[in-house]
């Protein structure tokens, strides 16, 4: 961001502008790009250390395994930018998978649409409780986590629900131009998410709400509506992600996605979105998801470590990012 001064002709007024000092610059840079830098470093390390890493097979594998997380993280980015949080995504994801299985006997399209719609409604209800009911997001979505998981287990009688019909499986299992369809869907949603976030009034409202809800109200922005919409989108994307997972695996598991909310939050925050709201980007979220995905992949390639090692890495990353953001941000508010 350049800070050029206006032409001297207008400069009758004296303006105290704080030149961004080194620390502020670092804060901004760190927030925006650190995940990308770390991602590049990790990819280089992985390519050097593991012969199997930089192979087409492995890379497409990373892509397909993280497509669902990316979908959810796109929604989570919107929610976190508005100073909210959605802990229910993992359960809603499972609910989506079950609904996809149940609807698949009616065809491929219902198997996607039903989870999408039901989970969107679920998100809307949470959003209304948060936006209109003015309840704390984490409590509402924690309850949502419990409810959606219960619903997924109840609907499926706690058993996997298989996806009927080739068409319904085709979506999750086919490839176009070397990448799985879910990957393309996730990338399209990411692009749409970036557009919505940066180029629409809704997106700008989310930034304003997260930056200062009071100011957003005084500016006459549609605060409640924007919040509700953010949770609705997150619910819908979580349901979609679940449906795609079910399609890919050939069945929906009611226990899928336990703890997925934590991965999504970690990816979003590592990607530079402030957990306190008001700043963030979809590109950062993509970098965050890929970073977690590559680290998981490295852990798998290394072997001998359980998947849980990745949780430790996420947790440590999250901790460092949050502390660094906090410390750097202290100096930013003058």
């Amino acid at each position, binding site marked *: 961001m350049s800070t050029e001064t*206006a*032409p001297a002709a207008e400069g009758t*007024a004296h*303006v105290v*502008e704080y030149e*961004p000092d080194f620390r502020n610059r670092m804060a901004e840079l760190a927030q925006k790009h650190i995940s990308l830098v770390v991602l590049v470093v990790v990819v280089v390390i992985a390519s050097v250390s593991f012969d199997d890493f930089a192979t087409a097979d492995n890379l497409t594998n990373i892509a397909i395994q993280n497509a669902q997380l990316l979908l959810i993280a796109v929604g989570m980015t919107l929610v976190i930018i508005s100073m909210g949080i959605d802990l229910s995504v993992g359960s809603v994801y499972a609910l989506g998978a079950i609904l996809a299985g149940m609807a698949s006997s009616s065809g491929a399209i219902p198997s996607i649409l039903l989870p999408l719609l039901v989970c969107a409604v679920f998100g809307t209800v949470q959003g209304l409780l948060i936006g209109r009911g003015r309840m704390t997001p984490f409590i509402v979505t924690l309850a949502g986590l419990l409810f959606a998981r219960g619903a997924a287990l109840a609907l499926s009688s706690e058993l996997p629900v298989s996806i009927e019909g080739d068409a319904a499986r085709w979506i999750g299992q086919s490839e176009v131009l070397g990448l799985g369809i879910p990957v393309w869907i996730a990338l399209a949603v990411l692009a749409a998410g970036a557009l919505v976030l940066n180029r629409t009034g809704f997106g700008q409202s989310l*930034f304003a709400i997260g930056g200062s809800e009071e100011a957003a109200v005084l500016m006459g922005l549609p605060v409640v509506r924007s919040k509700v919409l953010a949770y609705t989108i997150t619910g819908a994307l979580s349901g979609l992600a679940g449906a795609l997972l079910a399609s890919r695996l050939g069945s929906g598991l009611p226990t899928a996605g336990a703890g997925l909310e934590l991965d999504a939050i970690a990816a979003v925050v590592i990607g530079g979105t402030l957990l306190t709201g008001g700043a963030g980007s979809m590109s950062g979220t993509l970098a965050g998801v890929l970073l977690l995905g590559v680290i998981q992949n490295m852990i798998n390639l290394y072997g001998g470590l359980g998947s849980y090692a990745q949780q430790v890495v996420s947790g440590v990353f999250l901790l460092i990012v949050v502390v660094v953001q906090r410390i750097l941000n202290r100096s930013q508010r*003058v």
Partner: protein
Amino acid sequence: MSDSSTDTRTDSADPVLSLRGVTVRFPGVTALADVDFDLRAGEIHGLVGENGAGKSSLIKILTGVYQATEGEVHYLGEQVSFATPGDAQDAGIATIYQEVDLVPLMTVAQNLFIGRAPRTRWHTIDFTAMNERAKDVLADFGIPVDPTTPLQRLGLGVQQMVAIARSVSQDARAVIMDEPTSSLEAAEVDTLFEVIRRLHDRDVAILFVSHRLDELFRICDQVTVLRDGHLVHSGPLDELDRGGLVAKMLGRELVGKQTQQRDHDPDDHDDRPPMLEVSGLTRMPTLDHVDLQVRPGEVLGLAGLLGAGRSETARAIMGIDTIDEGTVTIDGQPLRTGRPRRAVAAGVALLPEDRRSEGIIPDLSIRENIALAALPQLSKAGVVSESAVDDLVDSFMQRLDVKASGPDQKVRELSGGNQQKVMLARWLCVEPRVMIMDEPTRGIDVGAKVEIRELIDELAEQGLAIVLISSELDEVVEESDRVVVLRDGEVAGRLEGERVTEDELMQVLASGGDEQ
């Protein structure tokens, strides 16, 4: 500056905003009583008054935050009743608050246009057009900043001007500024005034609230004075001089009644070393080298108009706000400021101005509130001695005559006076050596007021060094042995002995800063 526009404007011009017989009542309080007020196009209208005079109620009526209990509000000739701040905004009444209500993390252009940004053909936000238009708006106001700068990187003054630009570019007919200069530096104030003059040239009606009198005289052409909810004066500013204005604000003429000074012989204390000594206390822009000394048994009055730096001095001594420079010593021992805990340990106690949010713990009982600061002394090995607490609480409730159903009543249910007594008791339990009282009798009924003043005398007699901050002249004069008067964060005068009278105090308060 008013010269340019007086020609185009006549006094009979229809007011943009007017109040007729407006009364605002809350349970137990009348915030505004039967006020008539006019704000005309092309006028910069100052609104002044001490705390509790009704300034903020008047603003809130105009901006739709409050609704009048009685009376009418007219806007552009029509009777209106704004239900929300949004309604008033949409109608063209812009309000600039003391705290900038913008989004710090977003750019200047975004802050200017959020909610009404220019769109592209695809209905997405057109950032290029937005930045261009922002550049125009900023240039229009002579604000030389790049519209893509994040707001938080700008000084408060510029942020304030961006807020003004935002509201005015929405075709405002009236702009209400609530103490817009209170946190600005001198150069920023100049820029702000430049912007205000440009608005004025466009025939926008401006209501300017400030407690800095010199600013008022620099920029306003009309002035309205409120006192205790009543309108006491409204007219051209050049009819009044500084002294006259202060007299109207405080409700006293310069030669007024002589109130009796506290019969303390100041010589009693002179040979004793000061208990509290403050020197060179500086926290820009609110405090500029404040010096004061208080001896044991002495009451030092800290006077000044609103915003002079009285509470800020108290907060700096207590360590609530950090200081740029200066020293504080307690009984000869230097106090490392910056942490209230250290100040308390050194024997300093503060009765805060905002009792509700900084003093009482509303949901705890009287008993727990009183014992709070003294808990370490009332316990053994971390276990609170219930009997010791009961004894102490009982004795203080009796001594201060706290009226309550019993020690277990919640403090939130008490009257203001009794809450204040609880606060006093909390501090007396720890036997402080210095007690700073910030507006100890504000919002308290008359009976309790008298009791608290008596208590101040009593505590001084017991040897406490007391700093008394009060907006009420008679209170300062009657209770204090000496008075330090602050203006714009600097010591403007000191009164001792015979000179501690309301007249002398008024003189210092009303004089400009120029003799320094």
